[in-house]
């Protein structure tokens, strides 16, 4: 055997060994890659910090107020005569104040980031629990009026699901969210607080759905400095560049109003006339927006006029807080009024509701 042949034969096992180690590298790569991602996904789904999967093993990092409000509604012995709907701004409305102003019992069903699907579910659920009772409604909403985006927390609640035919389940988008470092950090925070220690929510509610006094300090909208928050909001208002055409285009999308249409149609069928309230904007922020024409407001008012042709409701514009005697100091941040201002606002709403709340 020549030396050359010997080298060639000697190379075969070496090549085989190299191929084996390379296979090991690829195997190790694929295993660790997919196992790491699967572990992260599993951890986030179990902890479920954003209430996307509905596992409910530990409290969520986001406020689970949709389910809380449904629980409280369930616990009522008699159906409320006024149902307060809307987002975090509406949460400040106290049913006791409405009772004082109108003589009717009320329940606050407004939820954080609430929009038309949340309001629709609350309306339907209240109607299902207390079917033979006509009701009055105040719906606190913003410029742009409504969206049809169903919050995952709402979609995950079995009591809400019958009213949400288009609600997505836990989908690919949620998998992406739960594969992210952001979700993992939040999960870890929840895990540390709730599993390694005991955790409880700092935001509590009275049986009528209103916030307890202690909870007011822990609201996410409670700004450390109102002045700084207003400054930021004014800067952001100045930077806005949307046009009337853009807003008209956005508000012309029928899908956006699917739940609002359903809700108004449901109420009108039952002979109920809701009061739709446009939320206030901090005076200097409103001034900054108006300096640029505030096309969003114009498009929204046009949309309200269109809705008026199809549905019966009372519209109360509370955007300019001067109209209802709002004070610039009585805000929790640049977008949320505090209880004192809310009392003034409720008085104005009741006075301008054309008897819909009487």
């Amino acid at each position, binding site marked *: 055997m020549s030396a050359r042949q010997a080298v060639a034969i000697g190379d075969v096992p070496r090549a085989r060994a*190299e*191929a*084996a*180690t*390379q*296979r*090991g*590298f*690829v*195997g*190790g*790569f*694929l*295993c*660790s*890659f*997919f196992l*790491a*991602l699967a572990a*992260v996904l599993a951890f986030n789904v179990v902890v479920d910090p954003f209430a996307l999967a509905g596992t409910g093993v530990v409290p969520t990092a986001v406020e689970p107020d949709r389910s809380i409000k449904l629980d409280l509604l369930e616990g009522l012995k008699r159906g409320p005569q006024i149902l307060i709907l809307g987002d975090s701004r509406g949460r400040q409305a106290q049913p006791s104040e409405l009772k004082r102003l109108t003589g009717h019992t009320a329940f606050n069903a407004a939820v954080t980031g609430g929009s038309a699907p949340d309001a629709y579910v609350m309306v339907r659920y209240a109607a299902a629990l207390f079917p033979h009772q006509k009701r009055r409604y105040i719906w606190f909403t913003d410029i742009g009026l409504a969206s049809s985006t169903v919050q995952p927390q709402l979609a995950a609640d079995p009591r809400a699901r019958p009213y949400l035919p288009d609600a997505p389940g836990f989908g*690919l988008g949620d998998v*992406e*969210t739960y*594969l*992210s*470092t*952001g979700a*993992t950090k939040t999960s870890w925070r929840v895990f540390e607080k709730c599993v390694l220690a005991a955790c409880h929510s700092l935001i509590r509610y009275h049986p009528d759905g209103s916030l307890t006094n202690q909870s007011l300090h822990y609201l996410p909208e409670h700004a450390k400095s109102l002045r700084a928050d207003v400054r930021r909001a004014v800067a952001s208002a100045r930077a806005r560049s949307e046009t009337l055409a853009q807003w008209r285009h956005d508000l012309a999308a029928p899908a956006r109003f699917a739940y609002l249409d359903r809700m108004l149609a449901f109420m009108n069928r039952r002979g109920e006339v809701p009061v739709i309230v446009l939320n206030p904007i901090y005076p200097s922020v409103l001034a900054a927006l108006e300096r640029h024409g505030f096309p969003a407001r114009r498009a929204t008012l046009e949309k309200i006029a269109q809705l008026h042709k199809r549905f019966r409701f009372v519209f109360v514009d509370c955007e300019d807080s001067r109209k209802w005697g709002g004070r610039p100091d009585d805000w929790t941040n640049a977008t949320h009024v505090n209880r004192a201002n809310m009392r003034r606002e409720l008085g104005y709403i009741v006075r301008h509701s054309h008897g819909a709340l009487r």
Partner: protein
Amino acid sequence: MLFNSYAFLFAFLPAVLAGWWGLSRWRRPRLAFLTGASWFFYAWWDWRYLPVLIGATSIDYVAGLWIARSESETRRRFLLAASLTTNLGILAYFKFAGFFFGSLNGIGSTLGLGAPLPSLHILLPIGISFYTFNSMSYTIDIFRRRVEPTRDLLVYTTFVGLFPHLIAGPIVRFTDLADQLKRLTPRLTSETAARGAFLLSCGLVKKLLIADQLNPYVGRLYTAHAHLGLASSWAAAVGYSLQLYFDFSGYSDMAVGLAWLLGFRFPQNFNSPFKAVNISDFWRRWHMSLSSWFRDYLFIPLGGSQRSARRTVLNLVVTMFLAGLWHGAAWTFVVWGLVHGFFLGSHAVLRRAGWTPRAVAVNRAVTFLLGCGAFVIFRSPSLGIAGDVLSSMLGLHGLDSSSQFAALVPFRFALLIGALLVFVNVAPNTWQIRLKPRVWQGMAAGLAAAIAVMTISQAHPFLYFQF
């Protein structure tokens, strides 16, 4: 479709790899599959620009065949001119028409003539600068009789459209791929897969865990361009240089890794550019496929450095002016190209005179600082902003107050810059790492890739996508 997206990593790539290696017995269906997949990849961005890609590909394929067949030098020149005019015409229309009209209107307004031309808002087809350059190199090489044209349309469509290099390079020449396309790799070997997976994970880490982490800090510094002091302006310049390097070299690593996974070898695009000892060395290490393209198809035909010093400088300035313009239709890119032309010309003159420093450390530092300064012009949205940052770098706006510096250059950012500066000067680049595949190394690479993938939701597009 971005390489750093879930759709690409978990749907497109596995499907393409399965199809490509599943069809390994049938060469033509395999090429047709890869072309189709690449066109799908391109159309995912905006399907309306797919006809532009297919049109440019078809014209150069036919032009290549006709040039090779023709005996007449005049006819060959005419055909080459037609091919180049088409490619440059597409590039000029999509990339420069709006800029040209806008600039003429600007001159008109300055002279009091108003804005006589319509303002064009043409959306730039992604990757156009890259695939037109791929195509042009093909017809030029055939004209120079350096390469035989392919008669197989599928080979040509695969060469131009191959998705790893389609959007942001490296600029691959037909000579790089002709043999590989003729004899396709029959099966995915463990070596190919290991190398591909390693480069892909390096690219993901560079892009997602380094470049994208620098992005918000750098963005904030350039937004505050009017308020920068000496130190914060240097942080902006160095931070962006590092961001661009990790972003683009990360993309290139991913492209090369993906090519490996398909059994192709792409040329190297970055070779530790911040270790360059002079500006011409920098251009041999930075975006190598583009600089070698300009060297071979422009600088050398203009006469290169074989003639007088004055002519060499002129050739360098013209080449770099066009290289700057290639990056985008904006005065910042033009000035950036001219500045590099000036640097290269100056270096050529100083080298001939023997006046370049000998100390490697000094040469490296000077080259790095000049490159960072030039990248300020490249990054800035306008020449005015570039002027603000550059004048701050020269100390003309004074020093930063401690509170301002702390706000603009947080400790984490400063630490990141420091660590990365050490890394780019000391560590080997991805091409220098001789992979000795072991299970634990594969696991480490997989884990790094997984961590990078977890940051995809905060990812930013690759910086070179805009070109």
